[in-house]
């Protein structure tokens, strides 16, 4: 690559950086003041592109385009204000996991709303009136609009910087970011402050999305891609720092642009196509920053992350009654193949349920006893599934080996990602795990030659005798029982106790010689590995897999399963996983808009039990025992 081409790509990267900056800065501002990670921020960005598209095409002309962009920012700002007033205001005191779930429910609702209004096709807006041409830079044609985008990012950064430094609103934001309770005690109405900050952050995301209208098509997958990128930017730049957000956006965008710019390089012994490595590069940047500065380039160490831990009963070995119940359920499941002769679908559903149980139990292992709220558990499911499927595809290994390899692939991934994840806690850990899952998803999506891209891998069928549904069911049942019993065994062993000690009080655990990070890292890896068993089974059960296997949606499914069953009991995820899989199968598939339906169910749950379902019962209990 020539030096001029290098510079040209760098310039191009700046226009991408502006888009990243707009989402990340809003996310960061909102988190600073309200302590809520708004996962729906990517959705607001996506809505921005769609709304701006409608303005530009329905009204058209200069006014429709440029006026539309401004109007879009305002509309999305209002949507943000409504979200804050109608939803978030009710759950500021809820456990953070519920807050994250609520904003994720919005992602589902907004996605289906966009599908309903604008349809499934990609929609590319018109070119920008007044900026249709291109100028010559270093002997290449650079679209004027890209140049405009490259400049508007820093311009907004300057305006924000000035507003935060010099206006009372800005001072209030900075003060509330540090100590919102004190700001309230000084007579500032937090409700108005929170709403306006949320509206501002939303408007910025809307603006960022709207500005993309002439550059990228509006697309239903944008929401999660954007939020994944924004998480990486915020983690790299440092939570709460707007300059950090821009700096990180530039670094990430430049690294990606350079990878594309470098393209295919022949090293003599090996030919590498760097343009396929944009996501790997993004990950490497994030990894490097997190090692050197765990709170981001310009971030500050955060105080103890709040976690409202409900009092938890000590774990006890299964009572005879529970053991009996387990035997009855197992016997019932063993009998299922007999029923299947009349209702063959029952076995398919049974396999789905069992796989869900592995998924939920392994997630619960780190979420409950480990206290690590992973929002990217699908990554390890996907690694297991792809690990098995690709072994079959490329090396034609027998099923036994492929299924045995699945947990190992997932384990390797979990060891790598977990090493970083355990360095953070609370919402940071949630963001990071989600970003990792997005990276795995995108890597699978991008690396078409190896993974089949969006088409996935097909023809992963089990060989005889496992091609008979009942035989495969029995295999799945066997592996599920092994997986669940293994995890249970670990929890009763010193390792499981050390894990809980590290969760209950990291300070005290360290003070009795426990390396909390290391224990939690290994726990993360174990959970990932076990989850990989589910992924491997899934690949052969379906005969084909696609990037959908790793989608954020699946990660969130896991969270809902665990919360449904109750995070504090060891049998909870088994019940929750089964219930959710059956629910999803029977109810969700009835409508095209099942995502929205699921989102609404989550919202109702969160609003009805803002302290968590278990918390609601605990509060009830306390009321009966006296006190307020």
């Amino acid at each position, binding site marked *: 690559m020539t030096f001029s081409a290098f510079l040209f790509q760098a310039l191009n990267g700046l226009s991408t950086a502006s888009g990243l900056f707009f989402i990340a800065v809003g996310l960061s501002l909102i988190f600073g003041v309200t302590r809520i990670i708004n996962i729906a921020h990517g959705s607001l960005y996506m809505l921005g592109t769609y709304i701006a598209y409608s303005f530009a095409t329905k009204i058209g002309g200069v006014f429709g385009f440029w006026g539309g962009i401004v109007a879009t920012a305002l509309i999305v700002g209002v949507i943000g204000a409504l979200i804050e007033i109608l939803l978030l205001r009710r759950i500021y005191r809820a456990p953070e996991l519920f807050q994250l779930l609520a904003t994720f429910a919005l992602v589902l609702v907004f996605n289906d709303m966009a599908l309903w209004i604008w349809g499934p096709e990609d929609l590319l807006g018109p070119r920008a009136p007044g900026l249709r041409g291109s100028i010559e830079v270093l002997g290449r044609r650079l679209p004027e609009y890209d140049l405009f985008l490259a400049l508007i990012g820093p311009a907004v950064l300057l305006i924000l910087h000035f507003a935060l430094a010099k206006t009372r609103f800005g001072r209030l934001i900075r003060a509330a970011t540090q100590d919102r309770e004190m700001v309230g005690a000084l007579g500032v109405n937090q409700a108005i402050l929170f709403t306006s900050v949320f509206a501002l952050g939303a408007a910025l995301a809307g603006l960022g999305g709207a500005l993309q209208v002439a550059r990228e098509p509006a697309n239903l997958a944008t929401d999660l891609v954007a939020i994944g990128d924004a998480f990486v930017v915020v983690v790299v730049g440092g939570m709460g720092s707007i300059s950090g957000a821009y700096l990180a956006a530039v670094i990430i965008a430049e690294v990606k642009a350079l990878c594309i710019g470098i393209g295919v390089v022949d090293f003599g012994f090996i030919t590498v196509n760097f343009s396929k490595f944009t996501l790997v590069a993004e990950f490497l940047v994030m990894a490097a920053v997190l090692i050197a500065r765990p709170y981001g380039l310009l971030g500050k160490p955060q105080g103890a992350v709040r976690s409202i831990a409900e009092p*938890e009963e*000590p774990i006890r070995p299964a009572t005879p009654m529970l053991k009996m119940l387990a035997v009855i359920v197992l016997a019932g499941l063993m009998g299922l193949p007999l029923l299947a002769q009349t209702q063959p679908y029952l076995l398919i559903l049974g396999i789905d349920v069992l796989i869900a149980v592995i998924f939920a139990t392994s997630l619960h292992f780190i979420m409950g006893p480990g206290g690590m709220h992973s929002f990217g558990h699908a990554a390890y499911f996907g690694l297991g599934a792809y690990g098995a499927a690709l072994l079959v595809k490329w090396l034609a290994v027998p099923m036994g080996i492929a299924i045995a390899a699945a947990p190992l692939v997932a384990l390797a991934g979990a060891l790598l990602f977990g090493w970083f994840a355990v360095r953070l806690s609370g919402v940071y850990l949630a963001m990071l795990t989600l970003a990792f899952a997005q990276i795995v998803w995108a890597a699978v999506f991008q690396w078409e030659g190896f993974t089949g891209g969006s088409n996935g891998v097909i023809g992963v069928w089990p060989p005889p005798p496992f091609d008979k549904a009942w035989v495969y069911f029995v295999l799945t049942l066997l592996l599920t029982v092994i997986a669940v019993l293994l995890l249970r065994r670990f929890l*009763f062993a*010193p390792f499981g106790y*050390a894990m*809980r000690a590290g969760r*209950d009080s990291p300070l005290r655990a360290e*003070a*009795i010689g426990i390396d909390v990070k290391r224990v939690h890292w290994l726990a993360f890896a174990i959970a990932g590995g076990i989850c990989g068993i589910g992924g491997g089974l899934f690949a052969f059960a379906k005969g084909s897999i696609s990037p959908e296997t790793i989608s954020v949606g699946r990660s969130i499914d896991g969270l809902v399963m665990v919360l449904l069953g109750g995070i504090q009991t060891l049998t909870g995820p088994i019940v929750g996983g089964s219930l959710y899989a059956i629910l999803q199968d029977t109810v969700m598939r009835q409508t095209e808009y099942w995502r929205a339906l699921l989102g609404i169910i989550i919202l109702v749950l969160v609003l009805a039990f803002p302290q968590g379902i278990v918390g609601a019962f605990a509060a009830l209990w306390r009321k009966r025992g006296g006190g307020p």
Partner: protein
Amino acid sequence: MSVLELRKLSKAFGGVRAVNEVDFAIQPGEFLAMIGPNGAGKSTCFNMINGQLPPDSGEILLDGQNIAGLAPRAIWRRGVGRTFQVAATFSSMTVIENVQMALLSHSGQTYKLWRPVAAMHRARALDLLGQVGMQDAADRPSRELAYGDVKRIELAIALANEPKLLLMDEPTAGMGARERNGLIELVKRLVVERGISVLFTEHSMDVVFAYADRIIVLARGRVIADGNAGDIRDNAKVQEVYFGTGKTFAEQHGVTP
């Protein structure tokens, strides 16, 4: 040789010198109290010794080896036990499991994945609980305990690694007068039996004067006095910064309207 020796230990926060070239030493079996007004640097000093804060400069010698800047768990492994100002347990565990956890860690079994904890080190844990008078509560959920009992459990945990030095941050904070004396007597008896040295901070002067072998007084990051109860009680400087004479106010009251 001293069990612990601080040499020119310093730590600043944002330009404010919280601990400023502090030197002192603890002899084997000594019961040493560190007192001083709030903000004098006691907690900072403590947190540097237990590894929670890295010092800016200076040395912390444990049996002659510098442990400054080591992680808390590494310092614990070298035989320093500690209790916290606000006592708490691993709240999801029973009383005995709390002690078993410390014993498991002490014997390097943290990463064992197979054997259930229930049967491991149970006898030794019961013995430790017995020594702090909590044997009967062994199988109760630890979060149900009264605060004074939590303090006793913490003591049992702190003794699990057979420490040579015990750091106690306000061991009697939040306790009533009678409970307070009971606990400190228990501590004193247990450490004397084992020859453990103790460094503790304390606001209750009854406790300090009744039980400490030696007292050091910190003020604004420096050691301003070091001696036995009598020396400290009569020290004019200590009276001024800590016990208060009321003189400052009496004089000042006269001159201002």
